[in-house]
């Protein structure tokens, strides 16, 4: 059963879903990512309120030693790999935290629960003239997931990734809840952006939306005969467009290697629209995405083979206009073309598929060609690939985007020797100074991961501070060595004197102090102002955490990372 259905069915119909959170045992369910590979079983718990998260955290803390399996939050299950799975532990279904808590329509600020989907955000905010600042190729993702993966969209070259539009994150760390902004605790904020949920359970966020006049896009489309031309066109022309993406046919070889359909555009202003779309205003800002089909659960494997995919790619290329400018598209049609078919991931059959998305620096555009060539050579049935340009990166140690070229490829897992093929691509990407996207990853090795994300120790250090006992765990974390036993605290403790000799103490004290002040002020202010807000309402040490939490923290060895936020909050 696909994850979204699964959580939906347990969630809405399940008998134990509403059991008192204190007995939070959850219900054992098998989960996979969107690629439907590498299943594992976890106790799925419905995070109907941040209190449930607190309770789950203290339950997870009770188990010690190798029996500890920890917990991770899960949104709509659109990560392709194992990011939102936690074998043998707890998985918090965060889609229940779907409230809109505070809205500032003057400035376009929305404070929402982490479980709200982009689709819901769009349905509610587009008619009011506000749009999400960044959206990936599907709107079936949650705000929490978007933060945890620091998602990007077709506007990265102009607007950066999602977290650069996030003002505050409500984060439930094992050391206590915090509302964190890039100003109040820069390290924690940016480690959470792209941190794949391993710094805390994200319960809410304040997002700076962007103003729009209409729910239409003005789009220029052109067919481009080969890779060089499309890269030239993007290099020289993208700056003029807010949104830009090229769909590449990875099956053509020779002269037409990398032939593409390049679509670029921006939000349409009212004056840009023809009369029939402009009036009444409700129509100009209507958002009524449709789904036209669904894929049955028992879709057989092999539907997407080199022949069918080849036909599709041919069709896609030919149906695109040779050149067309300023044509109005709906938002959904422009941003989320695949969302019209629900459960399209099932097309890959029972064995599933994966997506390989990498980025390489600008100067390494040749790597993109080499990789497309390799795929074309082995004739793996790669569905349309998506090529984009990235602008400057976010400061997060695990945030994916770096300036340059990013290519995303869907590949069926059943293809023989796919593992070795992709290991080879990893080497190329590492050689070019690039990396792959963790939200899509399901197969990267530990060593390749470290080579791609050289700042991982920074991340582990931060984790040692906010999760000293290693309660936050996921299958992805286990695979990549982000939540090993013994907990990261020990490891980073060894490395710290070597890395930053004299400054260490000072740095920690400084952040500690800054954080204590900043955090308390932030939460305090918010509590006073937003009395209606559900998140963060409970005191840091809520009743549920008291019993098990207190002895636990006493038993804890002296924390190398300085006082924890829970300690700090003690008067």
């Amino acid at each position, binding site marked *: 059963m696909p994850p979204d259905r699964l959580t939906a069915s347990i969630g809405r119909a399940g008998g134990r879903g509403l059991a008192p959170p204190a007995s939070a045992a959850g219900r054992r369910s*098998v989960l996979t990512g969107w*690629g439907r590979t590498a299943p594992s079983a976890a106790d799925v718990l419905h995070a109907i309120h941040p209190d449930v998260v607190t309770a789950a955290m203290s339950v997870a803390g009770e188990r010690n030693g*190798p029996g500890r399996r920890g917990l991770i939050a899960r949104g709509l299950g659109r990560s392709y790999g*194992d990011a939102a799975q936690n074998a043998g532990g707890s998985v918090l279904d965060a889609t229940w935290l779907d409230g809109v808590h505070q809205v500032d329509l003057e400035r376009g600020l929305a404070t929402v629960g982490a479980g709200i989907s982009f689709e819901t955000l769009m349905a509610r905010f587009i008619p009011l003239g506000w749009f999400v600042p960044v959206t990936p190729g599907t709107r079936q993702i949650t705000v929490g997931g978007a933060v945890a993966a620091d998602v990007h969209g077709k506007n990265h070259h102009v607007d950066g990734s999602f977290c650069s539009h996030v003002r505050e994150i409500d984060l439930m760390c094992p050391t206590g809840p915090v509302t964190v902004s890039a100003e109040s605790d820069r390290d924690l904020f940016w480690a959470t952006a792209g941190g794949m949920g391993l710094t805390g359970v994200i319960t809410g966020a304040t997002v700076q939306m962007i103003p729009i006049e209409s729910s239409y896009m003005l789009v220029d489309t052109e067919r481009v005969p080969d890779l060089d031309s499309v890269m030239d066109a993007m290099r020289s022309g993208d700056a003029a467009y807010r949104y830009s993406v090229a769909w590449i046919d990875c099956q053509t070889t020779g002269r037409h290697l990398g032939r593409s359909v390049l679509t670029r555009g921006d939000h349409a202003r009212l004056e840009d629209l023809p009369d029939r779309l402009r009036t009444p205003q409700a129509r100009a800002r209507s958002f009524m995405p449709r789904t036209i089909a669904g894929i049955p659960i028992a879709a057989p494997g092999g539907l997407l083979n080199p022949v069918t995919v080849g036909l599709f790619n041919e069709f896609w290329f030919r149906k695109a206009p040779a050149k067309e400018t300023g044509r109005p598209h709906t938002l959904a049609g422009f941003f989320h073309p695949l969302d019209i078919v629900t459960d399209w991931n099932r097309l890959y059959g029972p064995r599933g598929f994966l997506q390989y998305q990498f980025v390489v620096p600008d100067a390494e555009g040749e790597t993109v060609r080499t990789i497309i060539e390799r795929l074309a050579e082995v004739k793996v049935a790669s569905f349309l690939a998506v090529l984009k340009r990235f602008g400057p990166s976010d400061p997060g140690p695990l945030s994916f985007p770096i300036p340059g070229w990013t290519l995303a490829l869907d590949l069926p897992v059943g293809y023989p020797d796919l593992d070795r093929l*992709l290991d080879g691509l990893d080497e190329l990407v590492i050689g070019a100074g690039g990396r792959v996207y963790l939200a899509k990853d399901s*197969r990267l090795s530990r060593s390749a991961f470290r080579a791609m994300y050289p700042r991982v120790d920074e991340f582990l250090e931060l984790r040692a501070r906010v999760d000293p006992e290693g309660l936050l765990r996921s299958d992805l974390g286990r*695979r990549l060595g982000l939540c090993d036993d013994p907990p990261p605290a020990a490891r980073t403790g060894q490395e710290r004197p070597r890395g930053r000799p004299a400054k260490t103490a000072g740095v920690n004290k400084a952040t500690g102090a800054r954080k204590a002040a900043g955090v308390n002020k932030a939460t305090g202010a918010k509590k006073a102002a937003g009395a209606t807000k559900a998140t963060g309402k409970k005191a840091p040490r809520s009743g549920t955490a008291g019993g098990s939490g207190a002895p636990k923290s006493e038993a804890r060895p002296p924390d190398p990372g300085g006082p924890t936020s829970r300690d700090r909050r003690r008067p």
Partner: protein
Amino acid sequence: MIDATGRPQSVLVLGGSSEIAQAIVDLLVAARCRTVVLAGRPGPRLDEAVDRARAAGAQTVESVPFDATAVDGHVAFADSVFDRFGDIDLVIVAAGVLSHQPDDEEDPVLVADVLATNFTGPASAMLAVCRRLRRQGHGKFVVLSSVAGDRARRANFIYGSSKSGLDAFAQGLSSSLVGSGVGVLIVRPGFVVGRMTEGMTPAPFATTPDAVAKAVVRAIGSQALVIYVPPVLRWVFAAMRQLPEALWRRMPA
């Protein structure tokens, strides 16, 4: 964790010195498996297997004493392995003996020994390990069965029936594991040229430990419950099972 392409990071072998299992471990280590736990009867053969896995480049290679027939110790054995090494992604059930049937037929105790080594012992060990796999919520058994279990033959029905038993046990276990995150892969090789079959004339469609290993490694990430090596044996034995008894019992050894 077993990744999307079916590569485990840790493996436990029951019958660690098995030639077929060693060939599988070689491939797993080449595909980045970091922890190899070889459980078996202590001795030079087990030591050699440890050396070989180390030479292949695994980060942690340890041998652990394990006797398939010592069922009383299986729970403690499983607990100690999981407590010591953490998550085990793949468990290869390889312990087995191919005995000399004419001797066995003369000696009821020998028959019981074969069954204990090939069927009841591994079944008990699998259950013990299974408790821990269920708890960790992921993992996979690779069970080395045999085509000999598809239909018991006059010439080796004692071995054949032990493999039938193990095979049926593994199928049932697989059903019981639905929803647990743990999977089962049953491997039915034909005649494998190697130590176990030394001195015997290879049967048609004979294969090698390396070929079995390749097929196993390829199937780990799939949802297949049963694979044959070579694959053609699936159809050969589908036909064999339909042969009239009068013909079947004349099958050569």
